[in-house]
């Protein structure tokens, strides 16, 4: 019985250590390490956004729901000083006065583009 316990303990230790070493080259499970959304949103770091104010990020035209979600999260990572919300389109009925787009959609009436870099454009409301 004692030998069985010893053998089991040593087997557990060897398998565990081997798994730990194997972890150095572990699988990424198909998740991209540098997906497109990181590059798309990168210029946002320099955008003149109002600190603490709510800012809407408009869904990117043609992007999947999942990619839009990650764009929003990447925006939060780049600019944690801003209160981000997801917006399907120019928010005509919300209180937000600032929105960001990452595509080339035309400017909506009542909004004015005030800054752009790469695919990122910043809009301010001009009238309600």
């Amino acid at each position, binding site marked *: *019985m*004692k030998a*069985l*316990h*010893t053998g*089991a*303990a*040593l*087997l*557990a*230790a060897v*398998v*565990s*250590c*081997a*798994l*730990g*070493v*194997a*972890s*150095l080259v*572990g*699988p*990424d*499970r198909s*998740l*991209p*390490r540098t997906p497109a959304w990181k590059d798309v949103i990168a210029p946002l770091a320099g955008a003149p956004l109002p600190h603490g104010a709510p800012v809407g990020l408009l869904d990117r035209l043609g992007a999947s729901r999942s990619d839009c*979600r*990650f764009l*929003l*999260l*990447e*925006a*939060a*990572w780049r600019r*944690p*000083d801003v*209160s*981000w*919300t*997801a917006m399907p389109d120019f928010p005509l009925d919300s209180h937000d006065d600032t929105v960001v787009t990452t595509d080339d959609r035309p400017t909506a009436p009542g909004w004015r583009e005030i800054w752009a870099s790469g695919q990122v454009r910043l809009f301010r409301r001009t009238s309600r």
Partner: protein
Amino acid sequence: MSAWLPVALSLLGGWGISRWHRRLPGAPGAVLGAVLWGVALMGTSLAVLDLAGIRWTPAALAFPAVVAAAAGFLAHPTAPRSGRREWAWGAAAAAAVAARAVAVAAVPAFGWDFRYSWGLKAKVFALAGGHDFAWLVRPPDWLAHPDYPPLWPDLIASGVVFGGDPAAAAAAWQALFVIGIAAACWECATPAPAPVRALAAAVGAWVPVILTPSVAYSGYAEPLIAFGISAGVVALLGAISGQRGAWIAAAAAGAILAATKNEGIALAAALTLAAWRTAPRRAALAIALATLGSVGGWRVAAALHGVTGYASVLSPAWVAGRFLHLPGAFRAVVTPIHAALFLAWAAALAALGGRDARPVRIIVGVWAGALLAAYVTSPLPLDHVLRFSLDRELSVALPIAVAAGLRSVRFSGRAGGRPAPGAVSTG
């Protein structure tokens, strides 16, 4: 380099507290004690400053650590001396641990849950100089898990407060946890001969899966939980005989676990239950109070500010359906890594015989039950949850379970290791 400053300060302060702690019987050794009290000190400092409305600044975070370190110089712990042969095996273990710690420290965290949950919260908290409940009430996405206890993002935020990058700060803390897990495993196997203890330390340092440099693991909270349960098990094994230094350490480990993540709360509950069944009542009570204080303090603060998370689904029909779906979902996601983890667990459990290992068996049993309950009540798709968590959950308590199994290993024809059950060593 600035990301390392709070880690170094924590170690310094932890060393000071550990020097006083080691005047009590059953206290952890120097290395485990310094890491345990260092994490506890930094976590407590961040929480107390936030509660007091004092902004997190480098000076405010450094002050408690410097005071604790200065106090440590006045203490005179009584540490047992190691023999020459033990030092040789200690050096071998240190080399294995250093290799993993350097590998972990060299890769700044980049996993998605790090970037959009743990690290994002750390950035927000550092920017606000404390817990930003206004942000937690209205996060950009549920992935931020606003209701989770905040110790891991708090520790990362400490690196940001000192001017470091959150990714580098996470890597620095995780390198420290590698050392802490390895020291706990070394101490856990203390009754065994030195070569076996060195093997246990290597098992701890090379904990599988959770430190993989991958977008699915990098910078996650599991290494902190693995450290918490490893330190907790070692301390509990010493607390069984009522040693005051051991149950104080177990209480600290319970508080760390409960402040980290929902899985940590489950492990802290398992630690408490194991103490209740195997240790003197005052030890169990101390662990229970530390756990409740840690998790209760956060839950009350979060509730008062209106912070919510997504709720489990408790309807019998849902739970029954998930149970029925579980085997199929498991078959769909299982990989050779899972198979190897189950093999390691089967071997570890087979080695956990005897009265000495009863607390570990209780913890593993409660932990397994809590995991099953979480899977069958989660509102998220079962395949998704299993694919992105099962291997991590199987890994957090594996090193300390393996180390507990190694405790009873003796080589024939040779004297065993130290007789003291799992509490005292030079670490």
